[in-house]
Protein backbone atom coordinates (compact mmCIF):
# COMPACT_ATOMS: atom_id res chain seq x y z
CA UNK A 1 0.00 0.00 0.00
CA UNK A 2 1.06 3.59 -0.52
CA UNK A 3 -0.48 6.63 1.15
CA UNK A 4 -0.68 10.17 -0.16
CA UNK A 5 1.00 12.08 2.69
CA UNK A 6 0.59 15.45 0.98
CA UNK A 7 -1.28 15.55 -2.31
CA UNK A 8 0.02 17.75 -5.13
CA UNK A 9 -2.63 19.86 -6.91
CA UNK A 10 -3.00 17.13 -9.55
CA UNK A 11 -2.38 13.41 -9.02
CA UNK A 12 -4.19 10.60 -10.86
CA UNK A 13 -3.82 6.91 -11.65
CA UNK A 14 -2.97 6.36 -15.34
CA UNK A 15 -1.90 3.54 -17.63
CA UNK A 16 -1.83 3.11 -21.42
CA UNK A 17 -5.52 4.03 -21.70
CA UNK A 18 -8.62 2.60 -23.35
CA UNK A 19 -8.05 1.30 -26.85
CA UNK A 20 -11.24 -0.69 -27.42
CA UNK A 21 -14.07 1.65 -26.45
CA UNK A 22 -13.82 4.55 -28.89
CA UNK A 23 -16.91 3.33 -30.73
CA UNK A 24 -18.89 4.05 -27.53
CA UNK A 25 -17.39 7.55 -27.46
CA UNK A 26 -14.82 6.78 -24.76
CA UNK A 27 -11.57 8.74 -25.22
CA UNK A 28 -8.32 6.80 -25.25
CA UNK A 29 -7.07 8.63 -22.16
CA UNK A 30 -4.10 7.19 -20.30
CA UNK A 31 -0.78 8.81 -19.45
CA UNK A 32 -0.09 12.09 -21.27
CA UNK A 33 3.60 11.10 -21.52
CA UNK A 34 2.99 7.40 -22.04
CA UNK A 35 6.66 6.85 -22.78
CA UNK A 36 7.78 8.23 -19.40
CA UNK A 37 5.28 6.02 -17.57
CA UNK A 38 6.32 2.96 -19.60
CA UNK A 39 10.02 3.71 -18.89
CA UNK A 40 9.31 4.03 -15.15
CA UNK A 41 7.41 0.73 -15.33
CA UNK A 42 10.34 -0.93 -17.12
CA UNK A 43 12.71 0.33 -14.38
CA UNK A 44 10.70 -1.46 -11.69
CA UNK A 45 10.25 -4.65 -13.71
CA UNK A 46 6.60 -3.99 -14.67
CA UNK A 47 4.98 -4.53 -18.05
CA UNK A 48 4.46 -1.26 -20.01
CA UNK A 49 0.71 -1.28 -19.36
CA UNK A 50 0.92 -1.35 -15.55
CA UNK A 51 -0.80 1.58 -13.83
CA UNK A 52 1.27 4.32 -12.22
CA UNK A 53 0.70 7.82 -10.92
CA UNK A 54 0.60 10.96 -13.07
CA UNK A 55 1.67 14.00 -11.09
CA UNK A 56 1.51 17.70 -12.02
CA UNK A 57 1.26 21.35 -10.95
CA UNK A 58 3.35 21.21 -7.78
CA UNK A 59 5.00 19.31 -4.99
CA UNK A 60 3.76 16.73 -2.54
CA UNK A 61 4.74 13.49 -0.85
CA UNK A 62 3.87 9.79 -0.79
CA UNK A 63 4.57 7.24 1.96
CA UNK A 64 5.40 3.61 1.19
CA UNK A 65 4.00 0.98 3.49
CA UNK A 66 5.87 -1.99 2.06
CA UNK A 67 9.26 -2.78 0.52
CA UNK A 68 8.97 -1.76 -3.06
CA UNK A 69 10.98 -0.80 -6.10
CA UNK A 70 10.00 2.60 -7.47
CA UNK A 71 11.04 4.89 -10.30
CA UNK A 72 10.19 8.44 -11.31
CA UNK A 73 10.34 9.71 -14.87
CA UNK A 74 9.02 12.48 -17.12
CA UNK A 75 9.17 16.03 -15.77
CA UNK A 76 12.40 17.22 -14.15
CA UNK A 77 11.89 17.52 -10.39
CA UNK A 78 13.84 17.83 -7.17
CA UNK A 79 12.94 14.66 -5.30
CA UNK A 80 14.02 12.94 -2.11
CA UNK A 81 13.27 9.59 -0.50
CA UNK A 82 13.31 10.06 3.28
CA UNK A 83 15.94 12.78 2.93
CA UNK A 84 18.21 11.10 0.35
CA UNK A 85 18.28 12.33 -3.24
CA UNK A 86 15.92 10.35 -5.46
CA UNK A 87 17.39 10.38 -8.97
CA UNK A 88 15.06 10.32 -12.00
CA UNK A 89 14.93 7.32 -14.35
CA UNK A 90 16.58 5.18 -11.71
CA UNK A 91 15.47 2.05 -9.89
CA UNK A 92 15.13 2.93 -6.20
CA UNK A 93 14.11 0.69 -3.31
CA UNK A 94 11.83 2.08 -0.62
CA UNK A 95 11.49 0.57 2.89
CA UNK A 96 8.23 0.63 4.83
CA UNK A 97 7.78 4.15 6.19
CA UNK A 98 9.94 5.83 3.54
CA UNK A 99 8.50 9.07 2.14
CA UNK A 100 9.04 10.25 -1.43
CA UNK A 101 8.90 14.05 -1.51
CA UNK A 102 8.73 16.14 -4.64
CA UNK A 103 9.64 19.69 -3.78
CA UNK A 104 8.88 21.28 -7.09
CA UNK A 105 8.57 20.57 -10.81
CA UNK A 106 11.57 22.28 -12.40
CA UNK A 107 10.93 21.52 -16.05
CA UNK A 108 8.25 19.70 -18.00
CA UNK A 109 4.67 19.14 -17.01
CA UNK A 110 3.93 15.56 -15.95
CA UNK A 111 5.90 13.38 -13.55
CA UNK A 112 5.30 9.63 -13.41
CA UNK A 113 5.78 7.30 -10.48
CA UNK A 114 5.86 3.56 -11.06
CA UNK A 115 5.98 1.04 -8.24
CA UNK A 116 6.80 -2.63 -8.52
CA UNK A 117 3.62 -4.53 -9.41
CA UNK A 118 1.73 -1.37 -10.36
CA UNK A 119 -1.21 0.46 -8.80
CA UNK A 120 -4.21 -1.74 -8.01
CA UNK A 121 -7.51 -0.05 -8.83
CA UNK A 122 -10.48 -1.66 -10.59
CA UNK A 123 -10.15 -2.21 -14.34
CA UNK A 124 -12.90 -0.42 -16.29
CA UNK A 125 -13.07 -0.83 -20.06
CA UNK A 126 -9.67 -2.56 -20.21
CA UNK A 127 -7.86 0.14 -18.25
CA UNK A 128 -7.08 1.53 -14.81
CA UNK A 129 -6.82 5.09 -16.17
CA UNK A 130 -8.63 7.98 -14.53
CA UNK A 131 -10.98 9.82 -16.89
CA UNK A 132 -11.72 12.96 -14.89
CA UNK A 133 -14.40 14.49 -17.19
CA UNK A 134 -16.43 11.27 -16.88
CA UNK A 135 -15.68 10.80 -13.17
CA UNK A 136 -14.67 7.18 -13.72
CA UNK A 137 -11.57 5.00 -13.71
CA UNK A 138 -8.50 5.23 -11.51
CA UNK A 139 -9.16 5.98 -7.85
CA UNK A 140 -12.91 6.61 -7.60
CA UNK A 141 -12.79 8.60 -10.84
CA UNK A 142 -10.99 11.51 -9.19
CA UNK A 143 -7.64 13.08 -8.34
CA UNK A 144 -5.90 11.65 -5.29
CA UNK A 145 -6.14 13.66 -2.08
CA UNK A 146 -4.05 13.79 1.09
CA UNK A 147 -4.77 10.74 3.21
CA UNK A 148 -5.85 8.46 0.34
CA UNK A 149 -4.31 4.99 0.46
CA UNK A 150 -3.92 2.90 -2.66
CA UNK A 151 -3.23 -0.79 -2.99
CA UNK A 152 -0.40 -2.20 -5.05
CA UNK A 153 -0.52 -5.29 -7.19
CA UNK A 154 1.78 -8.20 -6.32
CA UNK A 155 5.45 -7.52 -7.08
CA UNK A 156 7.03 -8.88 -10.22
CA UNK A 157 9.19 -11.95 -9.76
CA UNK A 158 11.99 -10.31 -11.75
CA UNK A 159 13.42 -7.91 -9.17
CA UNK A 160 15.10 -4.95 -10.83
CA UNK A 161 18.65 -3.92 -9.97
CA UNK A 162 18.85 -1.20 -7.31
CA UNK A 163 20.42 2.00 -8.63
CA UNK A 164 20.03 1.05 -12.29
CA UNK A 165 19.88 4.30 -14.25
CA UNK A 166 18.34 4.56 -17.70
CA UNK A 167 20.70 6.26 -20.18
CA UNK A 168 19.40 9.46 -21.77
CA UNK A 169 19.78 8.07 -25.27
CA UNK A 170 16.95 5.64 -24.54
CA UNK A 171 14.56 8.50 -23.68
CA UNK A 172 12.77 11.01 -26.00
CA UNK A 173 14.63 14.28 -26.69
CA UNK A 174 12.43 16.35 -24.41
CA UNK A 175 14.73 19.38 -24.60
CA UNK A 176 14.64 19.65 -28.41
CA UNK A 177 11.08 20.99 -28.70
CA UNK A 178 10.95 19.46 -32.19
CA UNK A 179 7.88 17.39 -32.83
CA UNK A 180 7.40 15.31 -35.99
CA UNK A 181 4.02 15.35 -37.69
CA UNK A 182 2.44 13.47 -40.57
CA UNK A 183 -0.18 14.90 -42.92
CA UNK A 184 -3.70 14.90 -41.52
CA UNK A 185 -6.89 13.56 -43.05
CA UNK A 186 -7.94 17.04 -44.28
CA UNK A 187 -4.55 18.42 -45.26
CA UNK A 188 -5.65 18.76 -48.91
CA UNK A 189 -8.51 21.10 -47.95
CA UNK A 190 -6.09 23.80 -46.74
CA UNK A 191 -4.61 26.33 -49.17
CA UNK A 192 -0.95 26.44 -50.13
CA UNK A 193 -0.01 28.80 -47.31
CA UNK A 194 -0.95 26.36 -44.53
CA UNK A 195 1.94 23.91 -44.59
CA UNK A 196 4.77 26.43 -44.83
CA UNK A 197 3.23 28.31 -41.88
CA UNK A 198 2.76 25.20 -39.75
CA UNK A 199 6.25 23.80 -40.36
CA UNK A 200 8.30 27.04 -40.46
CA UNK A 201 6.88 28.78 -37.40
CA UNK A 202 7.43 28.47 -33.70
CA UNK A 203 4.21 27.87 -31.77
CA UNK A 204 3.75 28.39 -28.06
CA UNK A 205 1.61 26.17 -25.88
CA UNK A 206 -1.22 28.38 -24.61
CA UNK A 207 -2.53 28.51 -21.05
CA UNK A 208 -5.67 26.98 -22.59
CA UNK A 209 -4.12 23.53 -22.47
CA UNK A 210 -5.02 20.47 -20.46
CA UNK A 211 -5.37 16.71 -20.84
CA UNK A 212 -8.01 17.29 -23.54
CA UNK A 213 -5.93 19.45 -25.86
CA UNK A 214 -3.18 22.05 -26.20
CA UNK A 215 -4.11 25.29 -27.91
CA UNK A 216 -1.10 26.61 -29.83
CA UNK A 217 -0.29 30.30 -30.22
CA UNK A 218 1.55 31.56 -33.27
CA UNK A 219 0.86 32.49 -36.88
CA UNK A 220 -2.76 31.55 -37.73
CA UNK A 221 -3.47 29.01 -40.46
CA UNK A 222 -6.17 29.95 -42.94
CA UNK A 223 -9.21 27.75 -42.58
CA UNK A 224 -11.76 28.47 -45.30
CA UNK A 225 -13.92 25.38 -44.80
CA UNK A 226 -15.35 26.15 -41.34
CA UNK A 227 -16.49 23.01 -39.60
CA UNK A 228 -16.76 19.67 -41.39
CA UNK A 229 -18.98 16.65 -40.80
CA UNK A 230 -17.70 15.07 -37.56
CA UNK A 231 -15.26 12.20 -37.80
CA UNK A 232 -12.79 10.34 -35.60
CA UNK A 233 -9.70 12.05 -34.26
CA UNK A 234 -6.95 10.71 -32.02
CA UNK A 235 -4.46 12.04 -29.47
CA UNK A 236 -1.90 14.07 -31.45
CA UNK A 237 -4.37 15.28 -34.09
CA UNK A 238 -3.70 18.93 -34.94
CA UNK A 239 -6.95 20.59 -35.89
CA UNK A 240 -7.59 24.13 -37.04
CA UNK A 241 -10.70 25.95 -35.81
CA UNK A 242 -12.06 29.16 -37.34
CA UNK A 243 -9.56 31.44 -35.54
CA UNK A 244 -6.71 29.64 -37.33
CA UNK A 245 -4.82 28.79 -34.14
CA UNK A 246 -4.13 25.06 -34.12
CA UNK A 247 -5.23 22.78 -31.30
CA UNK A 248 -3.35 19.54 -30.65
CA UNK A 249 -5.73 16.94 -29.28
CA UNK A 250 -4.34 15.14 -26.24
CA UNK A 251 -5.18 12.00 -24.24
CA UNK A 252 -8.71 12.89 -23.08
CA UNK A 253 -9.87 14.47 -26.38
CA UNK A 254 -13.35 13.49 -27.57
CA UNK A 255 -13.35 10.57 -30.01
CA UNK A 256 -14.93 12.64 -32.81
CA UNK A 257 -14.84 16.25 -33.90
CA UNK A 258 -15.69 18.59 -36.73
CA UNK A 259 -12.60 20.78 -37.10
CA UNK A 260 -10.31 20.27 -40.09
CA UNK A 261 -7.39 18.00 -39.24
CA UNK A 262 -4.25 19.36 -40.85
CA UNK A 263 -1.71 17.02 -39.26
CA UNK A 264 -1.14 14.37 -36.62
CA UNK A 265 1.82 14.31 -34.24
CA UNK A 266 3.99 11.18 -34.51
CA UNK A 267 3.19 9.00 -31.54
CA UNK A 268 6.89 8.74 -30.74
CA UNK A 269 7.05 12.54 -30.30
CA UNK A 270 3.69 13.08 -28.57
CA UNK A 271 5.39 12.79 -25.14
CA UNK A 272 7.65 15.74 -26.10
CA UNK A 273 4.58 17.88 -26.83
CA UNK A 274 2.77 16.60 -23.71
CA UNK A 275 5.65 17.79 -21.52
CA UNK A 276 5.57 21.37 -22.90
CA UNK A 277 4.24 23.88 -20.39
CA UNK A 278 2.15 26.96 -21.22
CA UNK A 279 4.55 29.43 -22.86
CA UNK A 280 6.98 26.72 -24.04
CA UNK A 281 7.86 26.68 -27.72
CA UNK A 282 7.31 23.83 -30.13
CA UNK A 283 8.33 23.39 -33.79
CA UNK A 284 6.77 20.93 -36.18
CA UNK A 285 8.72 18.91 -38.71
CA UNK A 286 7.00 16.94 -41.45
CA UNK A 287 7.66 13.25 -41.76
CA UNK A 288 6.05 10.29 -43.53
CA UNK A 289 3.79 7.63 -42.05
CA UNK A 290 6.49 5.02 -42.79
CA UNK A 291 9.16 6.97 -40.92
CA UNK A 292 6.74 7.82 -38.12
CA UNK A 293 5.83 4.17 -37.54
CA UNK A 294 9.53 3.26 -37.61
CA UNK A 295 10.16 5.86 -34.86
CA UNK A 296 7.35 4.34 -32.79
CA UNK A 297 8.75 0.81 -33.15
CA UNK A 298 12.16 2.12 -32.18
CA UNK A 299 10.67 3.63 -28.98
CA UNK A 300 9.03 0.30 -28.15
CA UNK A 301 12.37 -1.44 -28.67
CA UNK A 302 14.09 1.13 -26.39
CA UNK A 303 11.50 0.45 -23.68
CA UNK A 304 12.13 -3.25 -23.99
CA UNK A 305 15.86 -2.60 -23.64
CA UNK A 306 15.32 -0.50 -20.49
CA UNK A 307 13.31 -3.36 -18.96
CA UNK A 308 15.91 -5.94 -19.91
CA UNK A 309 18.78 -3.86 -18.52
CA UNK A 310 16.93 -2.99 -15.31
CA UNK A 311 16.21 -6.63 -14.53
CA UNK A 312 19.71 -7.67 -15.67
CA UNK A 313 18.32 -9.92 -18.33
CA UNK A 314 20.96 -8.37 -20.60
CA UNK A 315 24.02 -6.18 -20.07
CA UNK A 316 24.96 -3.20 -22.09
Amino acid sequence: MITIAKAPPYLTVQDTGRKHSRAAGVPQGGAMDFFALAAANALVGNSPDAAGLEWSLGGGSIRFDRDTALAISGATVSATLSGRDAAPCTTIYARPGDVLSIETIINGRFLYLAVSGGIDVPVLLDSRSTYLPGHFGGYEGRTLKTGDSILLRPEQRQRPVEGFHCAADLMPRYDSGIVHIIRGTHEDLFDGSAWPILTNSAYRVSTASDRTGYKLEGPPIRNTMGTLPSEAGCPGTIQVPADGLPIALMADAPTIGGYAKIAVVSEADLPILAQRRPGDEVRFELTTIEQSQRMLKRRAADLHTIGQLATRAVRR
Partner: protein
Amino acid sequence: MTSLKLRARPLGDAAVTITFGSEKSTELLRRIQAIALSLEAKRIPNVNDIVPAYLTLTVFYDALDTSYHVMAEQLLDACQRSDERESSGAPSREHVIPVRYDGIDLESVAATTALSVTDVIARHTARTYTVDLLGFVPGFAYLSEIDEALHVPRRPQPRPRVAAGSVAIAGAQTAVYPLDTPGGWHIIGTTGMVMFDPARDPPALLAPGDKVRFEEAG
Protein backbone atom coordinates in the same frame (compact mmCIF):
# COMPACT_ATOMS: atom_id res chain seq x y z
CA MET B 1 -26.88 1.88 -55.06
CA THR B 2 -23.95 3.49 -56.76
CA SER B 3 -20.56 2.05 -55.90
CA LEU B 4 -18.48 4.24 -53.63
CA LYS B 5 -15.06 5.77 -54.35
CA LEU B 6 -13.00 4.86 -51.33
CA ARG B 7 -9.88 6.61 -50.15
CA ALA B 8 -7.64 5.65 -47.24
CA ARG B 9 -5.46 8.01 -45.24
CA PRO B 10 -3.47 7.58 -42.04
CA LEU B 11 -4.87 9.18 -38.88
CA GLY B 12 -1.59 9.20 -37.01
CA ASP B 13 0.47 6.07 -36.46
CA ALA B 14 -2.30 3.80 -35.28
CA ALA B 15 -5.43 4.48 -37.36
CA VAL B 16 -6.70 4.49 -40.94
CA THR B 17 -9.51 6.83 -41.95
CA ILE B 18 -11.43 5.62 -44.99
CA THR B 19 -13.46 8.30 -46.78
CA PHE B 20 -16.57 7.17 -48.64
CA GLY B 21 -17.82 10.46 -50.06
CA SER B 22 -17.79 14.23 -49.70
CA GLU B 23 -21.49 14.98 -49.16
CA LYS B 24 -23.30 14.19 -45.94
CA SER B 25 -26.44 12.11 -46.49
CA THR B 26 -28.54 9.71 -44.48
CA GLU B 27 -28.01 6.99 -47.09
CA LEU B 28 -24.21 7.33 -46.94
CA LEU B 29 -24.19 7.36 -43.13
CA ARG B 30 -26.27 4.16 -42.94
CA ARG B 31 -24.02 2.46 -45.52
CA ILE B 32 -20.94 3.37 -43.50
CA GLN B 33 -22.61 2.07 -40.32
CA ALA B 34 -23.44 -1.21 -42.08
CA ILE B 35 -19.85 -1.55 -43.30
CA ALA B 36 -18.59 -0.87 -39.77
CA LEU B 37 -20.75 -3.72 -38.44
CA SER B 38 -19.56 -6.11 -41.12
CA LEU B 39 -15.90 -5.18 -40.43
CA GLU B 40 -16.45 -5.85 -36.74
CA ALA B 41 -17.89 -9.27 -37.53
CA LYS B 42 -14.76 -10.08 -39.57
CA ARG B 43 -12.53 -9.73 -36.48
CA ILE B 44 -9.56 -8.50 -38.53
CA PRO B 45 -6.27 -9.10 -36.68
CA ASN B 46 -4.64 -6.08 -34.93
CA VAL B 47 -7.86 -4.00 -35.09
CA ASN B 48 -8.64 -2.25 -31.79
CA ASP B 49 -11.60 -0.02 -32.60
CA ILE B 50 -13.91 0.90 -35.49
CA VAL B 51 -15.50 4.37 -35.45
CA PRO B 52 -18.10 5.12 -38.15
CA ALA B 53 -18.97 8.76 -38.89
CA TYR B 54 -20.84 10.79 -41.56
CA LEU B 55 -18.34 10.49 -44.44
CA THR B 56 -15.71 8.25 -42.97
CA LEU B 57 -14.93 5.14 -41.04
CA THR B 58 -11.82 5.08 -38.87
CA VAL B 59 -10.12 1.88 -37.85
CA PHE B 60 -7.64 1.97 -34.96
CA TYR B 61 -5.00 -0.75 -35.01
CA ASP B 62 -1.95 -1.91 -33.13
CA ALA B 63 0.87 -0.11 -34.92
CA LEU B 64 3.62 -2.21 -33.34
CA ASP B 65 2.32 -5.39 -34.97
CA THR B 66 1.56 -4.20 -38.49
CA SER B 67 1.98 -1.17 -40.75
CA TYR B 68 -0.24 1.50 -42.24
CA HIS B 69 0.06 0.14 -45.78
CA VAL B 70 -0.85 -3.42 -44.82
CA MET B 71 -3.87 -2.23 -42.84
CA ALA B 72 -5.04 0.32 -45.46
CA GLU B 73 -4.96 -2.21 -48.28
CA GLN B 74 -6.72 -4.86 -46.24
CA LEU B 75 -9.40 -2.45 -45.00
CA LEU B 76 -10.11 -0.84 -48.38
CA ASP B 77 -10.64 -4.28 -49.81
CA ALA B 78 -12.86 -5.37 -46.92
CA CYS B 79 -14.96 -2.17 -47.13
CA GLN B 80 -15.42 -2.52 -50.89
CA ARG B 81 -16.51 -6.16 -50.62
CA SER B 82 -18.83 -5.52 -47.72
CA ASP B 83 -20.47 -2.58 -49.50
CA GLU B 84 -20.94 -4.56 -52.70
CA ARG B 85 -22.77 -7.24 -50.78
CA GLU B 86 -25.13 -4.47 -49.66
CA SER B 87 -25.51 -6.21 -46.35
CA SER B 88 -27.46 -4.07 -43.99
CA GLY B 89 -25.46 -5.45 -41.07
CA ALA B 90 -27.14 -6.49 -37.87
CA PRO B 91 -30.80 -5.52 -37.52
CA SER B 92 -30.88 -2.25 -35.61
CA ARG B 93 -32.14 -2.34 -32.06
CA GLU B 94 -35.03 -0.20 -30.91
CA HIS B 95 -35.08 1.63 -27.59
CA VAL B 96 -37.89 3.44 -25.83
CA ILE B 97 -36.68 6.14 -23.45
CA PRO B 98 -39.16 7.43 -20.85
CA VAL B 99 -38.87 11.18 -20.35
CA ARG B 100 -40.24 13.62 -17.79
CA TYR B 101 -40.63 16.81 -19.82
CA ASP B 102 -39.50 19.14 -17.06
CA GLY B 103 -36.37 20.63 -18.67
CA ILE B 104 -35.06 24.04 -17.72
CA ASP B 105 -35.28 25.18 -21.39
CA LEU B 106 -38.68 23.69 -22.24
CA GLU B 107 -40.53 27.02 -21.89
CA SER B 108 -37.91 28.96 -23.87
CA VAL B 109 -37.92 26.35 -26.66
CA ALA B 110 -41.72 26.67 -26.81
CA ALA B 111 -41.39 30.46 -26.97
CA THR B 112 -38.66 30.40 -29.65
CA THR B 113 -40.52 27.94 -31.85
CA ALA B 114 -43.93 29.60 -31.25
CA LEU B 115 -45.35 26.26 -30.13
CA SER B 116 -47.13 25.34 -26.93
CA VAL B 117 -45.23 23.21 -24.41
CA THR B 118 -47.70 20.41 -25.12
CA ASP B 119 -46.95 20.69 -28.82
CA VAL B 120 -43.15 20.61 -28.25
CA ILE B 121 -43.59 17.39 -26.25
CA ALA B 122 -45.95 15.90 -28.84
CA ARG B 123 -43.54 16.61 -31.68
CA HIS B 124 -40.51 15.29 -29.75
CA THR B 125 -42.29 12.01 -28.89
CA ALA B 126 -43.89 11.57 -32.32
CA ARG B 127 -40.83 10.46 -34.25
CA THR B 128 -38.52 7.47 -34.21
CA TYR B 129 -34.92 8.69 -34.34
CA THR B 130 -31.78 6.98 -35.56
CA VAL B 131 -28.35 7.16 -33.89
CA ASP B 132 -26.02 9.01 -36.29
CA LEU B 133 -22.87 8.65 -34.23
CA LEU B 134 -21.47 8.54 -30.71
CA GLY B 135 -18.95 11.00 -29.35
CA PHE B 136 -18.50 14.32 -27.54
CA VAL B 137 -18.44 12.38 -24.27
CA PRO B 138 -18.76 8.62 -23.61
CA GLY B 139 -22.19 7.32 -24.59
CA PHE B 140 -23.41 10.60 -26.10
CA ALA B 141 -25.53 9.58 -29.13
CA TYR B 142 -26.48 12.13 -31.77
CA LEU B 143 -30.06 11.28 -32.83
CA SER B 144 -31.63 12.45 -36.11
CA GLU B 145 -33.80 13.98 -37.18
CA ILE B 146 -36.19 16.02 -35.08
CA ASP B 147 -39.34 17.78 -36.37
CA GLU B 148 -38.35 20.90 -38.31
CA ALA B 149 -40.58 23.04 -36.12
CA LEU B 150 -38.29 22.15 -33.18
CA HIS B 151 -35.01 23.21 -34.81
CA VAL B 152 -33.29 25.77 -32.56
CA PRO B 153 -29.57 26.62 -32.70
CA ARG B 154 -27.30 25.67 -29.79
CA ARG B 155 -27.31 28.03 -26.83
CA PRO B 156 -24.80 30.86 -27.37
CA GLN B 157 -23.11 30.06 -24.04
CA PRO B 158 -22.79 26.41 -23.03
CA ARG B 159 -23.73 25.62 -19.42
CA PRO B 160 -20.74 24.53 -17.31
CA ARG B 161 -22.71 21.56 -16.02
CA VAL B 162 -25.61 19.62 -17.49
CA ALA B 163 -26.85 16.71 -15.36
CA ALA B 164 -26.66 13.12 -16.62
CA GLY B 165 -30.06 12.05 -17.98
CA SER B 166 -30.91 15.48 -19.41
CA VAL B 167 -32.83 15.14 -22.67
CA ALA B 168 -31.89 17.94 -25.04
CA ILE B 169 -32.26 19.29 -28.57
CA ALA B 170 -30.08 21.42 -30.87
CA GLY B 171 -30.37 21.99 -34.61
CA ALA B 172 -31.84 18.91 -36.26
CA GLN B 173 -30.70 16.55 -33.49
CA THR B 174 -31.71 15.34 -30.07
CA ALA B 175 -29.67 13.52 -27.42
CA VAL B 176 -29.52 12.41 -23.80
CA TYR B 177 -26.53 13.61 -21.75
CA PRO B 178 -24.94 10.40 -20.42
CA LEU B 179 -22.69 12.10 -17.84
CA ASP B 180 -22.56 15.35 -15.90
CA THR B 181 -20.73 17.53 -18.44
CA PRO B 182 -20.69 21.03 -19.84
CA GLY B 183 -23.30 21.35 -22.59
CA GLY B 184 -24.80 23.83 -25.03
CA TRP B 185 -28.02 22.05 -26.02
CA HIS B 186 -31.53 23.03 -24.89
CA ILE B 187 -32.69 20.80 -22.05
CA ILE B 188 -36.32 19.82 -22.44
CA GLY B 189 -36.59 16.85 -20.08
CA THR B 190 -35.05 14.19 -17.89
CA THR B 191 -34.78 10.42 -18.09
CA GLY B 192 -33.74 7.89 -15.48
CA MET B 193 -32.28 5.57 -18.14
CA VAL B 194 -28.53 5.00 -17.69
CA MET B 195 -27.07 5.95 -21.06
CA PHE B 196 -23.49 5.08 -20.13
CA ASP B 197 -22.00 2.86 -17.47
CA PRO B 198 -18.29 1.98 -17.75
CA ALA B 199 -18.92 -1.21 -15.75
CA ARG B 200 -21.56 -2.46 -18.24
CA ASP B 201 -20.92 -4.40 -21.45
CA PRO B 202 -21.45 -2.65 -23.79
CA PRO B 203 -20.97 0.54 -21.76
CA ALA B 204 -23.13 2.74 -24.01
CA LEU B 205 -26.86 2.04 -24.20
CA LEU B 206 -27.05 3.22 -27.82
CA ALA B 207 -24.99 2.23 -30.86
CA PRO B 208 -24.77 3.78 -34.34
CA GLY B 209 -27.86 2.88 -36.40
CA ASP B 210 -30.04 2.09 -33.35
CA LYS B 211 -33.63 3.40 -33.36
CA VAL B 212 -34.88 5.49 -30.45
CA ARG B 213 -38.29 6.73 -29.39
CA PHE B 214 -39.03 9.04 -26.46
CA GLU B 215 -42.17 8.43 -24.40
CA GLU B 216 -43.65 10.88 -21.95
CA ALA B 217 -43.37 9.38 -18.46
CA GLY B 218 -46.59 9.58 -16.47
